[in-house]
């Protein structure tokens, strides 16, 4: 069995397609998440102050410039109009002339919020932003006593609040493990048919079970190597939090179990399809759907009710939750149950791979 592990790993290391197929989809996904995080984050906004001498106007402009929900900068009316026309800013906040005086006189002046409403997501972000700025303005007392008579009291479930990128990085890490396991074990198995070396295995005195175990083990090792590098990179970049020893052990166990499930699945797919050109796209797509449906993109709470049931049947759901607990929040109260579920998935994956490869070898 060890001979098969060594041989498969040596072949995989010399096979650029394996590395490309393993890493490129995950890298693309990281890029997507970074861009998506950037796109939904802070939009460029112009602030035009037509009441330059007014104290209240000045406070409001300051609040807008300091707001963390968009990137505001002051402009003249003409410059703002030009920037808006050239799509360089998403919105223009205009404080009208005589704003401060009107406010002092109790005349209820209104600011103008010109919005490029391309789509509801970006537009609603902007629509929520201005009241947030105005709330700060009212709280400052620049408009007299704060008329808002309701206070907000926030209780957070997590002491550490990761960025969206860090949050999304964890399921991408799980996807990477899944992909690396499925693809590498799959390519290792399919190569036997494509190169005809399956005969070498058939004619050797090694039992079929050891062949399967060897291929799965090679897939797991390859996946773990990729996964540990990714965790290391996440820790080095400060996106992930170094877990305490117990959590680190759980993290490692979850990664191994997920990789084992993936490698078993990869062997089963390869034995069924037997052509690299089919195994690669099927593996990538399968891994992606396991990722999508396992809450890879968003928190499960945002998904429709019927998808919750589907997500519960996905190993990635449990791996992601456990890894987020360990690598983002420092603990996961349900870690034990999740490890157990992942172990069942791992057994299931290998159980699917063994008969498929045995049948494949026998044919």
């Amino acid at each position, binding site marked *: 069995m060890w001979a098969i592990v060594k041989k498969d790993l040596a072949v995989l290391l010399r096979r650029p397609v394996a590395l*490309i*197929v393993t890493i*490129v*989809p995950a890298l*693309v996904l990281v*890029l997507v998440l970074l*861009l*998506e995080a*950037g796109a*939904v*984050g802070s939009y460029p906004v112009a602030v035009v102050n037509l009441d330059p001498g007014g104290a209240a106007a000045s406070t409001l402009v300051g609040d807008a410039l300091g707001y963390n929900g968009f990137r505001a900068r002051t402009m003249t009316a003409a410059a703002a109009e030009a920037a808006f026309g050239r*799509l360089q800013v*998403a919105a223009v906040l205009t404080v009208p002339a005589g704003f401060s005086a009107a*406010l002092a006189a109790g005349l*209820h*002046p*209104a*600011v*103008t919020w*010109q*919005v*490029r*409403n*391309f*789509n*509801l*997501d*970006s*537009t609603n972000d902007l*629509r*929520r*932003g201005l*009241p947030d700025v*105005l*709330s700060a303005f*009212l709280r400052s007392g620049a*408009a*007299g006593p704060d*008329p*808002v008579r*309701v*206070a*907000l009291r926030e*209780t957070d*479930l*997590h002491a550490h*609040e990761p*960025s*969206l990128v860090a949050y999304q990085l964890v399921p991408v890490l799980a996807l990477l493990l899944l992909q690396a396991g499925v693809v590498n074990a799959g390519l290792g198995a399919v190569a036997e048919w494509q190169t005809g070396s399956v005969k070498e295995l058939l004619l050797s005195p090694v039992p079929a079970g050891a062949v399967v175990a060897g291929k799965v083990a090679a897939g797991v090792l390859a996946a773990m190597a990729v996964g540990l590098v990714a965790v290391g990179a996440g820790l080095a970049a400060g996106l992930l939090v170094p877990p305490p020893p117990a959590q680190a052990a759980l993290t490692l166990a979850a990664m191994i179990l997920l990789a084992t499930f993936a490698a078993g699945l990869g062997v089963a797919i390869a034995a069924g399809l037997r052509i690299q*050109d089919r195994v690669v*796209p099927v593996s990538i*797509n399968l891994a*992606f*759907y396991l990722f999508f449906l396992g809450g890879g*993109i*968003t*928190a499960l*709470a*945002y998904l429709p009710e019927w998808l919750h049931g589907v997500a519960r049947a996905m190993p990635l759901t449990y791996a992601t939750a456990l890894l*987020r607990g360990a690598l983002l929040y420092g603990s996961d109260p349900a870690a034990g149950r999740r490890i157990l579920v992942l172990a069942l998935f791992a057994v299931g994956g290998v159980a699917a791979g063994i008969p498929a490869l045995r049948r494949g070898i026998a044919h």
Partner: protein
Amino acid sequence: MNGLRGAAAVLRNDLALARAEPLATILAVVLPLNFLVLFMLFALSGGRVPAALYVPRPAAPGSAQMVTALRDALTFDLRPVPTRAAATDQLGRGEAVVAITVPPDLAPGGDGPAVLAFTLDNENADFADDVRRALPLALLSFTAQQPGGLPVGWREVDTYRSDVGFLAYIAVSLLTVSILVGGLLTGGRSVAGEWERGTIKELLLAPVPPWAVVAGKLGAGVVQGLVSAALVLGAVIAAGAHPASWSDLGSVAAVTVLALVAFLSLGLAAGSLMRRVNSVTPLAFAVGLPLFFISGPFGPLGWSGAAASVVARVFPVAYANAALQHAFHGYWTLHGGAALVWPVLAAWTAAALAASAWSYGRAAAPH
């Protein structure tokens, strides 16, 4: 005459090959459909925040006003629960992101400040900030209805008459990714396949000029690409976006054909240079996908502040995206509009055609 006959023969043969092994065509459809699922999930996470709402009974009229203000805060999918414990349970089970308790005594003109308590599953800063930013809007709306109202108001001026849904907006770019990756894959695999299986000799030794082979392969690629694009267009329409008029549908067709020819040509050029299917396939993804994602599928170039948008302006993908957004939603997401977008697309197509003819001609020339 030899050339046209040869081009027709190559076109027919490539279509027969595509029918026999439709991997590139399948990928050109499956990939955007995968992205549709991805985008739907993005749209879901950018949509309403599931919120467990507890209002102790009996509640004062002011509390009802606050619930309305929360409902109108563009953010929450409010799910009323009978007890505070039920709200906490929903939060614990991951069915809600925030549990909000509206005080029962929010009487208009009450004495001291009332407290609106909320427990937030702050799994990440972005999702949490959506909640944090929505609550002031609710409080301002609530206060505006109270005697005295707000000392300051705001007037929103929207640029376009109606809002386009997030999914309808981002779904349009599915066509772009289908054309981009599908074109690169089909073009690249088509010519690299000839080298790999040795059938390039059949083409080189036939009494037809090299341009005929390129034209035939492009023609077959356009047919396959149009089939894929039609299927993807169906998915885009199902996602809620559709061309505003027949002439806009004509624009969609024009962008599709221009961009297809451009990306097929670039694929053909890559295939002629690399001559290996296993090289051009990952190249199509490795080049196509990042290029797609920096070219403004989620919003106008530059809004995200990414330096990548400068790079994106060099390539035709951003212009194809912009032309499609215009055809579907009637607005230009790229400054310069039609006067910029169409000439850039046409120039890229011409340049890509020249590149494919040159690289195939070079590969086919006697050495």
